[in-house]
């Protein structure tokens, strides 16, 4: 009796094992897609925040109606993904810039593709300085490289961070919750207050900080488009002296 059970058991186990014999013959994702987002007004990489803007890709060789994948744009304005399946992709950079065209890219091996985009807003004359033992002052002005058809401008804000990554996604949350550290512009470009050179007035914030800390500071402004991401100034490092 026992023998029968044992032999049945062995046969069943053999069946289980045999069902696993097929070898997955599909290559792992090993293609590499990388590139830069170039600001057409400066010719340099766009000033971005870590992971806010993105390069969106759709693998068209796989399905007629594929779901999207996102490659985040890094703070230095580059993007990089080394684990993509080889195939044909539709690619579009999405973020704080005028909508870019979707392009079709064959990805296999290492593919580099740079996108040149025009930001909605450029922030210039950025100044950040320590004005007292416990406060700093930041200011900047904004300009619109393309004024016609520019979506309504939402707001301008300073961003403070205690590490090198600084922006809306990487800032000290405390400052976001305080109305005084955000200027709601909420107007179209023609209604924005301007100086004689046709660019915006100076937006200035005085911000309380803790003595003895090192802050990374920048400012950002955004418009009411699909994504509502910020255009940024460069990042300035401020050391607040210990008193």
């Amino acid at each position: 009796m026992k023998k029968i059970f044992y032999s049945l058991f062995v046969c069943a186990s053999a069946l289980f094992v045999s069902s696993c014999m097929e070898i997955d013959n599909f290559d792992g994702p090993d293609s590499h897609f990388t590139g830069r987002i170039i600001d057409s007004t400066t010719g340099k990489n766009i000033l971005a925040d870590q992971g806010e803007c993105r390069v969106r890709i759709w693998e068209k060789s796989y399905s007629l109606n594929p779901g999207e994948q996102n490659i985040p744009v890094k703070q230095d304005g580059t993007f990089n993904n080394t684990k993509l399946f080889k195939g044909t992709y539709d690619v579009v950079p999405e973020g704080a810039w005028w909508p870019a065209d979707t392009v079709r890219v064959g990805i296999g091996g290492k593919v580099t593709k740079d996108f040149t985009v025009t930001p909605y807003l450029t922030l210039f004359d950025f100044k950040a300085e320590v004005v007292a033992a416990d406060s700093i002052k930041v200011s900047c002005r904004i300009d619109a490289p393309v004024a016609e058809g520019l979506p309504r401008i939402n707001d301008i804000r300073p961003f403070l961070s205690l590490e090198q990554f600084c922006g809306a996604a990487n800032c000290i949350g405390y400052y976001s919750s305080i109305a005084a550290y955000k200027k709601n512009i909420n107007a179209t470009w023609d209604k924005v207050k301007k100086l004689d050179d046709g660019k915006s007035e100076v937006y200035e914030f005085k911000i309380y900080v803790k003595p003895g800390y090192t802050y990374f500071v920048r400012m950002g402004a955004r418009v009411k488009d699909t994504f509502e991401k910020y255009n940024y100034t460069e990042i300035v490092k401020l050391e607040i002296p210990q008193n």
Partner: protein
Amino acid sequence: MKTFKYITAAIALGFMALACQTLDLEPKGLIYENVLLSSDNGVKKYLALVYQDLPIEDFNYGQNGDQRGYATVYAGGWHGGNQWQAQKSSAASAAAEACGRALSYGDSWGYWPYDRIRDINNMIEQLPNYKDNYKEEEYNALMGEAHFLRAFYYFGIVKRYGGVPLVDKVMDPKAPAEELQLPRSTEYDSWKFIYEDLKFAMENATASKAELGRANRYAAAALMSRAMLYAGSIAKYSQYIPTTGNAVDAGLMTMPEEYAEEFFQYSYDACKFLKDAGFKLLEGADKEQNYIDVFLKDNSATEDIMVKQYGPKTTTPWNTNLFHCWDAMTLPIGTNLSSSVGAAIQPSWELISLFELPAITDENGNPVRFDDPSDIWKNGMEPRCKANFFFSGMTESVSGTVIDVQAGVYSEYPGTAADGTEEVGGSVNAYTDQYRHRMPQPGQSKEINGQTVKVSGAHGLAEGVGDEGYTYMGTFIRKYIDTGINPADRQLFGSTQSWKVFRYGEILCNWAEAAYELGLIRGDENLKKEAIEHVNELRRRAGATEYQYNAAPADLGTDVYGFPIDENLQYIRDERARELCFENHRIFDIRRWRIADIMFQDGVYTHALLPYYVLSEGKWIYLNEVNLHGRKVTFDKKWYYEQMPGGEISKNPNIIRNDGY
């Protein structure tokens, strides 16, 4: 060895059984269409599940979390039973009417009730075969009812996704895939489809109000007034949301502004239809009690157009009844009050401040001093406001308990209201650290400046009891709290009061808004004035001051939202917020007005209405602190349209995804 023989015999017998050809027998325990569709009682049985799953945002409707969705259809699975957690994921807290755990609109739970739509389509197709069993008007009434139900399901889908595949017949599962994989229709066509179904239902469904809880032509008219108002405002305001992409280009989400007038007119006409049918507001001499009766009594002769009923909790078989937990989840913990959880959502100052009530700060920004916390509601408060909220000092009628809220004690209060209400979670700053005293448990006293004084009220605020059970917002919800309940039933699954699916109060709100929007589109002053008259009808019943039509209204919208909303229209919208609070309209209203993303931009705190005793003066003050738990309500612009469920796209690649994600 014997066992082995038996096994062999059993297997052999098994083979013999396979040889039988007559296994294809009709089971005896099932009832088929030929029985179900040949009598009114049979149809009721047939439609039971269709009614149970209707997308009614009732006591059991929740936003984010595992239990998001409706009582019986939700993300966690199908027919999971009654949801005691519903208030923890309340739509009211996601719309900042209250503070609770759900802080955002609960998108992407994949609502896709085409199974019920198939049931209805099957009835519409098969019922003609049984026409002989009915009198002409009975047959028409059933067809009308089926069209109303189908429209209700499509309303639930279209308001979430925009244009959807419009299935108006029973599809054959064996048909080629291309025939089954219907693409999405445009958003305009989808709303028009709902219109056509409701028009049919208004003309054909029964005019009898005899069966409580069952749809008649008035329910169809009420849904028409609501759904077409949604469609009209989406047509008018979706242009201000700058989302672009394939779905927008194809008209699957957003509609051109030119269609707004058409939809507002449909809504207007449906409201008028209901007034002509004799519906009116429930009126009574005691305005406060009357307003409570609106929600607790059977008002089918006056205000009720359709109600959803519940029954007592059943244990065997488990969960076969529909019940809810409104009383236990909204009242505070206490003897004969809630015996479990309690106060899961608590009214916000954002809502309360819309009502007429005495000022709590003077012109210099100092808190007004009261002799007693109850002074705030005893003098100068709108009766409707008293009927909606429990303020400190009010008596809860079933338990006889006096609601006792005290947030703490200020040893003295030399500053302005702003000093004690800084915009940080719980409003903690150097000023409050210096003067404010609070206790960890309810009903505790403390020695301050040599005097022993009560610091925390019996029903809150207590810092050490978490976010439920006791108030941290200063008030409790009174609307819909059952005054005829046995106190022992104030536990989970103990509540059975009906939900007013449609009531004439809502119709007047719809009518006012539709009339005013039409007046704006056509430049017709009479329509605008008529709108204000509908608002004032509600306000007279509420015991509030009537609103005076402003012929030259200021534009309140452009500076805030970037598009015009005039003063009168804003007032009509605020009246809607007052009249329909906690009825789960608000989240969908701010969504269809396309203002939610700006209202809640970057997350906004909800505020409390907290009574404090000022020790040095022996007086009471009220402060609008940021809620104790620092909760912020958010709304992402993309949530104006939910994303199409991924599982449906994998089945049907013709479904185009919504943009903005």
